[in-house]
């Protein structure tokens, strides 16, 4: 019975994303533009760009995700489907996890696909690509999962976007540090298993804990 509600939830989220392509395209275009601005604004020198390529792509991806997080529950809150979701007899935390991961897939996965291309533009050394992709694949779901708690807390507020950033951005610092650290280590031909292990551990904890916190936060938001 629960498999069916999970399956329907995935189908629904994908359908909504397909009908509002702007929700998917806006963060992607934003990501592309921010990364493009760096060589234009700082210096097109290849050695310099190679050094900042990893961090710039990571930070741009982070900011692009912040753009899309705000709308994670907003629409459902406004049209009442969030209320219906909160009183479901199906396991709420699981459905929320499904929703967040589908949202990640539709808005963030395209960004990750585009990242190597921008790496080439920024002269990222060849050894760095694997680390770039792996850290993004492990790190961005954590950002979505933690960001979902913030999005749930601010969903009832008008203009909650700024508050959302203030709440969750500090929490992303460790992810950013390990992500960019791994890429730097890779370009210096050093081992970066440690950073990947840390990101994997954080992802596992986030997968277990954040859906429950998000469910609780949504209940608080709808209470007011």
């Amino acid at each position, binding site marked *: 019975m629960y498999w069916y509600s999970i399956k*329907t939830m995935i189908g629904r989220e994908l359908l909504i994303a397909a009908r509002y392509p702007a929700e998917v395209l806006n963060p992607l275009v934003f990501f592309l533009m921010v990364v493009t601005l760096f060589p234009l604004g700082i210096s097109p020198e290849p050695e310099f760009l190679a050094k900042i390529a990893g961090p710039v792509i990571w930070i741009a991806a982070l900011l692009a995700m912040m753009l899309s997080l705000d709308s994670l529950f907003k629409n459902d809150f406004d049209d009442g489907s969030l209320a219906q979701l909160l*009183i479901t007899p199906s396991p709420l935390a699981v459905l929320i996890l499904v929703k967040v991961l589908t949202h990640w897939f539709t808005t963030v996965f395209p960004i990750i696909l585009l990242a190597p291309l921008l790496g080439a533009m920024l002269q990222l050394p060849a050894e760095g690509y694997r680390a770039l992709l792996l850290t993004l694949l492990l790190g961005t779901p954590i950002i979505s999962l933690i960001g979902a708690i913030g999005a749930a807390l601010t969903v009832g507020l008008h203009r909650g976007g700024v508050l959302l950033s203030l709440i969750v951005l500090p929490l992303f610092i460790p992810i950013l540090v390990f992500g960019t650290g791994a890429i730097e280590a890779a370009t210096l031909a050093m081992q970066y298993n440690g950073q990947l292990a840390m990101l994997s551990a954080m992802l596992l904890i986030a997968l277990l804990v954040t859906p429950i916190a998000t469910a609780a936060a949504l209940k608080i938001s709808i209470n007011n």
Partner: protein
Amino acid sequence: MPQALLRAENLRFEYDDLLLFEQLSFSVMPGEVVYIEGPNGSGKTTLLKILSGLIDPIEGQVYWQDKPINRGARTYQQAMLYQGHQSGIKDSLSARENLKWLMSLKGLRDVGQIEEALAASNLAGFEDIPCGHLSAGQKRRVGLARLLINDDNHQTAEKLWILDEPFTAIDKSGVAALEATINKHAQRGGMVMITTHQEMQLTVPTQRIVLG
């Protein structure tokens, strides 16, 4: 003597020191329709949200089959249907897609009931149009079509509907159809909690809770 399935005890709720109600107790028998009445702002919607389990009362407790609804919530949530001011219908999805999702939340599969329910709600031909393109009344009907789905699928008559102003934007024939649906539901032992400014023609026992 059948037992009351839904029972509220000493409910109290206030918004920023503005008392909406206190010491509110009532019980609902199978087959009963309960009107919740009161002027605007008297807390009708809040009371319905408390009964649905969406918000908690400041004091008091709601019981379903003698168990608090926030414990063992699953049995209650399975037996309860809440239709609020916002109907839970998404504009970008069609009537069929919307209802399919709402059903799946209750673990129900569509084996043709959606088609039937939409046809009975005068929405035949509108099944696959995104609900954003429907009129306000039609959208309301899509939400209310859920009542028909539950009716035919559930053998258990112990079913509670919580309806917040269901007649908004609905035309005359729709009002009559909804009245008939509510009558039929109550005759089968179902219960309805409803806020409305419209007098309904019902043949089943009713109760009035007056707020404010």
